[in-house]
């Protein structure tokens, strides 16, 4: 079941950012083709047949998948790192909730992303740019459909405000460790 957060409010998407490609302005990045970085668990949806050699998805060339050993491996700061380095949206795909190969990894990342969405809101980044989806090994069609839906939703979001001046060169040192709010055995976050 895709947990992509509430749909974008209608009044805020009146202008679908016609002449405003992503601020990364990569070559050929069309306005309606947001750059999406997805983290894919090795044990969740099989990437066989839906991913090209360079990691982009066959049906959605604007989406790049990065395979990780478990969805719980992902630090929320990496999602922020992707957003701050030119990605318009980023999502995590894990096994179906309750059926994580490593028992609880997807529940953990669900909680962490829920906390992170609140944090993003404070930073004036639309939390809808971050999503979690959960599909099992053979649910490739549903997975592609969910990613497409996520991509469309991100495309409709208004362009983010210009980022603050970069304090450090990207990629040299790790992203800031998530303003100190720890992820872990904290109270369960409320669901959208």
């Amino acid at each position, binding site marked *: *079941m895709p947990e992509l957060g*509430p749909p974008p409010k209608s009044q805020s998407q009146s202008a679908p950012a016609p002449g405003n490609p992503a601020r990364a302005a990569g070559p050929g990045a069309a306005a309606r083709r947001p750059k999406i970085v997805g983290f894919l668990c090795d044990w969740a949806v099989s990437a066989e047949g839906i991913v090209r050699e360079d990691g982009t998805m066959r049906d959605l060339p604007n989406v790049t998948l990065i395979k990780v050993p478990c969805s719980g491996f992902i630090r929320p700061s990496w999602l922020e790192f992707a957003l701050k380095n030119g990605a318009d949206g980023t999502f995590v795909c894990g096994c179906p909730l309750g059926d994580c190969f490593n028992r609880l990894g997807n529940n953990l990342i669900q909680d962490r992303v829920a906390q992170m969405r609140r944090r993003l809101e404070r930073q004036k980044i639309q939390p809808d740019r971050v999503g979690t989806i959960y599909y099992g090994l053979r649910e490739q069609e549903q997975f592609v459909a969910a990613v497409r839906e996520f991509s469309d939703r991100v495309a409709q979001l208004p362009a983010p405000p210009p980022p603050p001046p970069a304090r450090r060169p990207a990629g040299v040192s790790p992203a800031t460790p998530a303003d100190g709010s720890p992820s872990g055995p904290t109270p369960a976050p409320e*669901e*959208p």
Partner: protein
Amino acid sequence: MTGVDNDRAAAYGMWIAILSLVSLVCVIGIAWAELTSTGHPAHRLLGGGLIGVVLLAYSFILLFLRKGGFTGV
């Protein structure tokens, strides 16, 4: 899943009401079986079986509460 789908909630609400009625009847049946028990196991069997029906009804009530959107995760 956001918000409550009213049609769905109504359908499940009806089932919850029916199951509640069933369990009420069963509770009356348990009381009756216990009050008229003569020491023969048959009445106790009826009572025990009806306890089972009540528990089953409760389990489905819980399920429908969840599926109808009345209770969250």
